[in-house]
């Protein structure tokens, strides 16, 4: 048995244990409100996996996996990208603008919109990388602060210059049907967004496991001094990784606009908290892309199940967020459980 195998296995056991403990603690919370925890959990599972619930879970998985991988790519290379919100916003807005105003046939417009979103999100994260490299402002901080700027600027734009005056909401016009991403292919419950995200996930996983670049990023994350000593151009790499992480967040923004919301509404992209759930998934997965995908899908199911449980039992869906947080807390507590001196 190799050390690597042991580590992976104990990690897996730890995650399972954390979930079990979180479920028990969450059950106690439910119990304290006088409800029956068993029926709550039953309703969460049913709502997440059965009938329309499964479609819901799959479509919620797309942005969650996207934001999880955006965080994981950066983590892997030693960068902490807290700016997913901002990158998603500029990506979403870029996609909306191209889809609304570029005079091209519908499908071409959709492709251009996706590309614009990737570039916008990537460049927005790249600004934070350049600030770190040039002025030594930590990426973690600038990426986060840039989100507030993005929020303010996009909010202004959709309230004034870009506003659709026919609705009472601060939002842009609706994207024409031709430029939208189809929600179903060959009448299957598979959207174009799911396909794109699946392709992205495969690319990220393969690059991480087998790619020369993935290897270099991972080694940099483990020890940047060693990477520099071995000939890695750390400055260039930081910029590239930041760009790719931001590009993925931008793509998520575009997929949401072109596939689900069809217009950029102030606050709508951020309301479900994809960035933070994605970050949590990446942290839980210790930045392993494949584990991030699994964890993000699990969180999506949990959240969808929560909404269904709320409708069925009248208990607030926030409970599933509590569960999500409890799992992370249990896992974070793990080293202390087992540490002996």
């Amino acid at each position, binding site marked *: 048995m*190799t050390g690597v195998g042991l580590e992976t296995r104990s990690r897996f056991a730890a995650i399972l244990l954390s979930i079990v403990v979180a479920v028990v603690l969450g059950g106690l919370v439910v119990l304290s409100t006088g409800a029956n925890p068993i029926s709550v959990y039953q309703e969460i599972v049913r709502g997440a996996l059965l009938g329309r619930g499964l479609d819901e879970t799959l479509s919620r998985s797309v942005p969650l996996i996207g934001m999880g991988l955006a965080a994981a790519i950066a983590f892997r290379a030693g960068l902490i990208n807290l700016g997913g919100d901002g990158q998603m916003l500029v990506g979403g807005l870029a996609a909306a603008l191209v889809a609304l105003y570029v005079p091209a046939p519908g499908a071409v417009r959709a492709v251009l919109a996706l590309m614009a979103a990737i570039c916008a999100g990537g460049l927005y994260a790249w600004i934070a990388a350049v600030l770190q490299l040039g002025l030594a402002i930590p990426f973690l901080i600038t990426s986060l602060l840039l989100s507030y700027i993005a929020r303010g600027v996009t909010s202004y734009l959709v309230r004034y210059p870009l506003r659709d005056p026919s609705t009472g909401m601060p939002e842009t016009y609706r994207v024409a049907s031709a430029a939208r991403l189809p929600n179903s292919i060959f009448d299957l419950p598979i959207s174009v967004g799911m396909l794109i995200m699946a392709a992205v996930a495969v690319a990220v996983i393969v690059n991480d496991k087998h*790619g*020369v670049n993935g290897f270099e990023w991972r*080694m940099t994350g483990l*020890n940047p*001094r060693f990477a*520099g000593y071995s000939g890695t151009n750390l400055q260039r790499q930081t910029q590239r990784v930041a760009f790719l992480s931001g590009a993925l967040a931008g793509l998520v923004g575009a997929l949401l606009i072109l596939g689900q919301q069809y217009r950029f509404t102030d606050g709508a992209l951020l309301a479900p908290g994809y960035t933070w759930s994605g970050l949590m998934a990446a942290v839980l997965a210790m930045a392993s892309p494949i584990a991030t995908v699994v964890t993000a899908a699990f969180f999506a199911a949990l959240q969808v199940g929560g909404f269904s449980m709320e409708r069925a039992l009248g208990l607030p869906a926030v409970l599933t967020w509590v569960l999500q947080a409890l799992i992370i807390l249990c896992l974070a507590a793990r080293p202390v459980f087992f540490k002996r001196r």
Partner: protein
Amino acid sequence: MTLLQMKGISKRFGSLVANDGIDLSVNSGEIHALMGENGAGKSTLMNILYGLLKPDAGEIRIDGKAMDFASPLGAIAAGVGMVHQTFRQFPDLTVWENLVFQNEPGQGPFVSAAAARDVVRQLGEKHGLEIDPDSRVRDLAVGIRQRLEILKALSRQAKVLILDEPTAVLTPQERDSLFTAMRHLASKGMALILVTHKIPEVIAVTDEITVMRDGRVSGTLTTRETSEAEIIRAMVGRNVPPTVATKVTSTAQPMLSVRNLSVRRGGVAVVDDVSFDVRPGEIVGIAGVSGNGQPQLISAVAGLEASTGEVVIAGRNVSGLSIADRRAVGISYVPEDRHLTGTAPAASIAENIAFGTHRTAAVARYGFLRKQAIRTQAHKLIEQFKVKAASEQVPIGSLSGGNMQKVVIAREIEHGSPLIVIEEPTRGVDVGAIEFIHKTLIAERDKGRAILVVSSDLTELLALSDRILVMFEGRIDASLSGKDMNEATIGRWMMGGAAGA
């Protein structure tokens, strides 16, 4: 009279038995050496004595009283002091501030500086360890900073003093004055424990020797009655003849030429106008007390640090080139700190070997890693360099210091570069691995490689080098070979040359 007695000390970390029924007793007035290879369990034992770790079994008695330390504070109160390898000091504070920290004389919330200065002066006079109480710690030489560590322990009424590899950073002269101080402290009735790898020191200064191997005591010797060979046998379980290279003089065209190289840090030239050559088929050693610019010089040669002047490798001026390009031109580099710079400890041995050549055809094709080839190569090097590892897939950080160093050296030699730059080839490495590494370097020299070695261990430099350059305050003032290459001469140049030259 037995001052310190440790009996049946055992400590496990998971499945690893670090200490297995260790007995150690030290008399008052005695200097006791604690020896052993890396991973033999010396640090664990000393950390238990200093209250940093709790033993699973066994007892500690000081002056016959059973002790149970919950933390170092308990150990300090019981009279145990420790001089750590890396000093626990505030460099920006003065000597007296460092000395009385956590033990301040004075009234209520106010510290009496005058009383503190007196403590420094009195202790210094009493033990021959004088230091100016008002100098800033960061301005002091390493030897003096170590003196402060000892004073700190003494000011807390230490009866048992642990010195962890105290000579690693000292010049021969500083080392001698440390030994004098140790003798003096022993004569006042203290018990001293000297943790070290270095056999000559043990012979020179200690009374009794305890040798550890694999978590057990493998020998208790009396210094007067033993020999180097016997100590080595206890440490490694076999006889190791000292490897001293036959000295050669190379006249080939230089493989590395450094001309007028300077490295500036905040207006100070830490490397100051240095020029030298290293030729194929020779080992050139760089000696010097740490802090005289050696690491900066090497970083500048390897391309990790910005510098002025010229670096020419294999006839090509590489001054403006990146690390990657310099490596391509023909430099291999084994850095000083294998944990910090030389490896990614959490990654596997195979990954650590492949990294650095991961963009070459041997390791990757079409942007994808050739995992099988990487494993095969790693496996081959593990065999060839006799690395003790369960497989090439285990994290390199799980290896012992010596085995980890072997992997780093194997990787750099495997690159096949004509020039090898190596810092501290055997620091923190056990005797068996030292011998292997030295033989490997000499063999590579004989194959015609140019090798530049920096080491703080003079014995090592003398054994390996054909020529020794001495650095002092960023300059290289002496190039010694033949008869001039001896400890006394090098020691004088390490102090600046003026004193005895």
